[in-house]
């Protein structure tokens, strides 16, 4: 029997729980053998607010996926999101130790350790250390080994989260006696499957706009240079519409889907749309302008926040983001969102059609994060040297439950 394990990729989202089951054979083969999406409860803005409700939904989704696949899950890869995730860029350096100035493995390790040694307050936990290119005496080098120089530097984009929030999500999985093998932040998981290698090289900004959060990752020259979470998503658009139009949440949601557009245009001024459209009592006309203005304000604000964060990290160089903005997530289905992104960022923008190398039913935005999780389950985070997790992290966190 060849070595095969069943990995469940689990995303505990604000509006839905997505589970993908992948059978990993040896080190190279991945079959997707089950999937399930269920509405989420007990999650707001990407964070678990009701552990019991969230657990029930997640457990039901995993069990359903197991039934579909007629197998049991061995381990779980879990995505992370929420405003508690914070990233920092740290540079580590080492002086080349050998007298001949040739870079050896030990110098690399020393530089990496230096970058990652920054300790966090007790209530924070590292989730990723994402490696950026080395520089040798200030010059970028892809592989500094065996090259000559005096000082080696390496940068890391490090993401850490609130220990309590992270362990809440682990608790949910622990609740059905499964172990979490690894955690990946949502933006990175989505990005890895939605972008071609060439797009990562050219530079691209992936924006995953979900129900409660908008997660983004910026690739430049093939490297992840920044990730972020804006705790605003489709739920906010619905809430804004509900408040602004003074209609029930359900009606607001319908307006958003049926009549919504991410930007306002002058033709909206005289257009009217019906609340129910079925000529029943209580049906009422609303100006389309009200709907599109409310949505435009919200969507452009989210994009502006992302742009602001990229600018303050000094990584927003349009020429270095040649592949533009790639949108995914449930809210990317909003009419005109690509146009709105294009206007705000001044970059080409498109809504992702999903990864091309999976079955059609999995190309929907619901699965992009979990597909990314399976990608990492297959390749491991170390393989492309871009992400790294200190060993013992999960042990430390899962240790909290005993």
């Amino acid at each position, binding site marked *: 029997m060849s070595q095969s394990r069943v990995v469940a990729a689990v995303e505990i989202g604000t509006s839905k729980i997505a589970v993908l089951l992948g059978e990993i054979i040896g080190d190279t083969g991945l079959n997707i053998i089950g999937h399930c999406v269920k509405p989420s409860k007990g999650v*707001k*803005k990407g964070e678990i*607010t009701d552990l019991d409700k969230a657990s029930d939904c997640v457990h039901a989704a995993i069990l359903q996926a197991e039934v579909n696949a007629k197998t049991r899950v061995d381990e779980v890869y879990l995505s992370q999101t929420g*405003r508690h995730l914070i990233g920092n860029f740290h540079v580590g350096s080492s002086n080349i130790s050998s007298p001949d100035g040739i870079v050896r493995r030990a110098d690399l390790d020393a530089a990496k350790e230096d970058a990652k040694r920054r300790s966090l307050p007790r209530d924070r936990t590292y989730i990723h250390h994402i490696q950026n290119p080395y520089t040798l005496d200030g010059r970028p080098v892809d592989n500094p080994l065996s090259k000559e120089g005096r000082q080696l530097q390496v940068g890391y984009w490090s993401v850490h989260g609130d220990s309590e929030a992270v362990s809440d999500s682990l608790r949910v999985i622990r609740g059905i006696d499964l172990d979490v093998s690894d955690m990946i932040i949502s933006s990175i998981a989505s990005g890895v499957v939605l972008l071609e290698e060439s797009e990562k090289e050219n530079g691209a900004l992936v924006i995953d706009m979900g129900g409660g959060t908008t997660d983004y990752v910026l690739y430049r020259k093939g490297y992840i240079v920044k990730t972020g979470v*804006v*705790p*605003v998503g489709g*739920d*906010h658009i*619905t*809430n*804004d519409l*509900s*408040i*602004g*139009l*003074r209609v*029930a*949440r359900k009606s607001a949601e319908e307006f958003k889907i049926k009549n919504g557009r991410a930007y306002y245009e002058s033709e909206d001024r005289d257009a009217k749309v019906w609340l129910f459209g079925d000529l029943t009592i209580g049906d009422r006309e*609303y*100006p389309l*302008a*009200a709907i599109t*203005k*409310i949505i435009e*304000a*919200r969507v452009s*604000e989210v994009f502006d*926040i992302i742009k602001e964060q990229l600018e303050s990290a000094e990584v927003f160089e349009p020429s270095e983001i040649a592949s533009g903005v790639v949108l995914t997530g449930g809210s990317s289905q909003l009419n005109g969102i690509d146009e709105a992104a294009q206007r705000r960022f001044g970059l080409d923008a498109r809504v992702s059609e999903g990864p091309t190398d999976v079955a059609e039913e999995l190309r929907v935005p619901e699965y992009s994060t979990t597909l990314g999780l399976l990608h990492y389950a297959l390749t491991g985070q170390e393989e492309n040297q871009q992400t790294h997790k200190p060993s013992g992290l999960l042990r430390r966190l899962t240790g909290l439950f005993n």
Partner: protein
Amino acid sequence: MNTTTDILFSQDTAQTDLKIKIIGIGGAGTNAVDGLKLDNLGDVRLAAINTDAQALNQSPISEKLVIGRSVTRGLGAGGEVEIGKAAAESDRDGIARLIGDVDLIIMVVGLGGGTGSAAAAVVAEVAAKTNALVLAFATLPFSFEGARRKRIAEESVGELRQLVHGLIPLPNDVLLQEGEEDTSVLNAFAVADRWIGRGVNSLCAMLLKTGLINQDFSSLRSVFQDRGGKTIFGTGTASGGDYVKDALEELFICPLLHLGDRPAQLDRILVNVIGGADLGIAKVNEIMTQVTKRFGSREDIVFGAVIDEGRSQSLELCILGKAEMDTFVLPDAADPVATKSKRAVSTGLGLETEISLDTRAPRPVHTSKLRKKLPDANQDEFTFVDNEDQRGYFDKTDRNDYNDEDLDVPTFMRRGIKIKIK
């Protein structure tokens, strides 16, 4: 149904010896009181309190009190809460004299500045020592006025809520939605004054005017018997044409009442109707039916209807009540309590409301009925909300702070973008 007619036509006059005092505090509060046009209401006395003597001099109000002369030399608090506080503290006696011996105190204050924010709490403290029922209308600053004013206002709201019987916060961001599309900021401040005017007017008319259905002071008292908790307030007015339908619609879309779908735990509310001589029983009945359908069971709603001789073909609806939000839980369709606890709904219209008002012992305001009823009616179409934080669905979650703004509050409101929904 026939039995109700007698009561509807009862000519009991409201208490004429009821003493009401409306006190404007600080610059914005005084301005709002200056602008009050109290329609045919003789027995209401107006007063103003400010640190700025010059501003107060220009007010036409007869009873005025400059506080903190020793602190500010009559020059105002300059937006400093500490100065406003010291000024008010130094004149507690004067404030007590100004308040005097009344039954109902209506405080009007603009929060976010120095005098209003700080002195309101002191006035409320002094007022609390009297036997009077104390209600307060407080405007909250626009988002664009900055985070500092916002913070000051929020702190005052927290403080005042503990001191007065009913606090009605009026967020300017929300009120802005009401004016015409191109309302300037100056006009926007006037919009707030107009809302206060409507509220105060309706309240006084309800208590002082003879009605088709009288609401007396004791029914108001019973709704606001406890301090703390959150106050529900909304109005709708219309004239000409199908004014009943229009006023109802205005009330139902009142921005202070609908800020998302959050069901509040609601106790009794007062609904007051002010109409002209042409307001007949049939129209009142229609209003009652519609309002009841929309706002909950008949038992929880106390109706009042008064005739203002000066009006014709026009209607003003006002609702006022108390909700307890703190123990709020999202209603769950699977909740067994929800399906079991359907209570008998009374059938008599005016009669039932009169009885509930006259004979039933006041109930504590902290028990919910709306929540239990939610699932068995389409009540989720309309729910009450905490109107000062404007967060709707996200109310029970942590603030979503980014650059001093709460991202859970709709962007269009924070940016002052006006949304016309008609």
